């Protein structure tokens, strides 16, 4: 028992490394269509993890999270096209700009809670999309912008399927690592306390505003890095795609299905949803969205706390019945 307890803290690290090695080994087994599908899964693992930092741990559901994705992507596009910076410089700067933007809008918006915060963030994302659309000189406007990826215009050689597979894998690993570190840290305690009762958290000495703003910025940083990489991968980007509210919705759904406020939840949610979506698209092409929606509804009704939290509770109490679970959470 004592030996088992001593090794227990290592379990997440070891399983994380094994998972990473498995993902690296998997690459050579995939043909290019599959490789792109798995790459998209990595992207959404990173995005869902980033959303979970504030939305899951602190309960502040941002419905405009895609704004960081768009800012990271458009910063990269503009900087590579107009200022001839290398992609790697743009990647880092794009993340930083998204983080700064998060801190900036976080200061006023994080005074709002619940639905009000959700709506305000949604408004910001829609507003920034309009701004980007209406600056054709800089961003190409609604017609989109094409990144220099070939010839002597290219500042960085295009990465190709294999390169993007590795880069998105690295971002997913980074996001999981950050999420895990936050969960076990002082800040993680504060965020969970804020989730439960913000007044009580402040009474315990937590500077609630500061921790919320910093977490929103961190969440923006990761989302911005992913957006920058996505823009380079797509080569030509449009405001409708980079600021698409569907991307935010996917992040939220993945976190909710997997289990919000956990490290494993967004990972599980992203993998399940992307696989399911791809499977349905290939086998039930004409009504795959309908089926996916129906499955999401059933999953949320039966497992309102998410798959990971359900399994944790069930293991603790020995109660695996889904009906009992529905009753316990009274949806």
């Amino acid at each position, binding site marked *: 028992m004592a030996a088992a307890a001593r090794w227990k803290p290592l379990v997440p690290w070891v399983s994380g490394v094994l998972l990473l090695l498995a993902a690296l080994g998997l690459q050579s087994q995939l043909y290019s269509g599959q490789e792109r599908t798995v790459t998209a899964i990595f992207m959404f693992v990173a995005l869902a993890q980033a959303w979970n930092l504030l939305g899951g741990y602190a309960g502040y559901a941002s419905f405009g999270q895609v704004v960081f994705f768009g800012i990271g992507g458009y910063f990269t596009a503009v900087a590579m096209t107009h200022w001839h910076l290398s992609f790697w410089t743009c990647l880092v700067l794009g993340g930083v700009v998204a983080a700064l933007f998060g801190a900036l809008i976080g200061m006023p918006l994080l005074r709002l809670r619940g639905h009000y915060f959700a709506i305000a963030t949604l408004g910001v994302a829609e507003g920034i999309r309009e701004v980007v659309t209406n600056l054709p000189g800089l961003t190409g406007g609604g017609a989109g912008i094409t990144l220099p990826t070939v010839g002597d215009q290219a500042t960085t050689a295009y990465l190709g399927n294999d390169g993007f597979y590795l880069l998105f894998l690295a971002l997913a690993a980074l996001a999981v690592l950050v999420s895990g570190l936050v969960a076990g*840290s*002082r800040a993680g305690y504060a965020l969970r*306390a804020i989730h439960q009762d913000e007044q009580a958290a402040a009474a315990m000495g937590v500077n609630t505003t500061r921790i919320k703003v910093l977490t929103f910025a961190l969440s923006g940083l990761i989302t911005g890095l992913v957006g920058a990489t996505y823009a380079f991968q797509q080569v030509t980007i449009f405001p409708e795609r980079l600021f698409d509210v569907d991307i935010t919705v996917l992040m939220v759904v993945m976190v909710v299905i997997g289990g919000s406020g956990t490290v494993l939840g967004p990972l599980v949610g992203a993998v399940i949803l992307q696989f399911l979506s791809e499977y349905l698209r290939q086998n039930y092409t004409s009504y795959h969205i309908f089926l996916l929606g129906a499955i999401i509804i059933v999953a949320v009704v039966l497992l309102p706390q998410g798959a990971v939290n359900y399994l944790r509770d069930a293991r603790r109490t020995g109660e695996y019945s889904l009906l009992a679970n529905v009753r316990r959470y009274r949806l």
Partner: protein
Amino acid sequence: MTATPVLRTEHLSRRFGGLNAVSDVSLSIPEGETVGVIGPNGAGKSTLINLVTGHLKPSSGRVLIDGRDLTGARPWVITHAGVARTFQIVKPFRGMTVRENVAIGILYGPHGVRRMSHAREQATRVLEETNLADLAERAPGELSVADARRLEFAKALALRPRLLLLDEVMAGLRHREIESSLELIRTLKTRGITIVVVEHVMRAILAVSDRVVVLHHGKVLTEGRPRDVLSDPQVVEAYLGHRYAQRRTGGS
């Protein structure tokens, strides 16, 4: 009285629309004193605490902690100035264990411990002090009313405060449970912590207070030694009504 009082309020007032919830309250509480605050429902007791701890902003007046003007400062600033409180309606962090609930205060309180392992050790010590050690790994939702109130207490103590504001920590408790809360308050008194006890349980107030302040309609009705205050006809009237007071004092 030359020493700076730990807590001082000057003409503190708070209006909610047309209601003067707290009006012109001036108090001075020196270090080490235990002050009981009593008054009928709606007298402004909880509002007074909320004004001191920054959970409500005063309409006018000042709050001084150790002589520092902290009027309208945010709650965590007040906490860092050495003030801890409990909430009348218990506010446990439900998704966390009892130990984690207490650890928050150790991590973020005025003595801000940074190492998680140290925080956990200190949390265990606070739980032992408050007789919650056996429940350390439980979820707050599984606790009895008495233990949930005790957890509020433990969370406040985790901050190692110099001034402790207790908002009805004994409400709804049974005789024996009240005794153990009083025992805890007495222990804290011996450590020199300044305590403000807001309470409905009169026996409890009498047992621990050096001084009692009576609030009525947001104003200080009277203050003084516990026995004197309780026999004050004004106080009897505020609590039990005009006619009862007349009968007791034999007045016209």
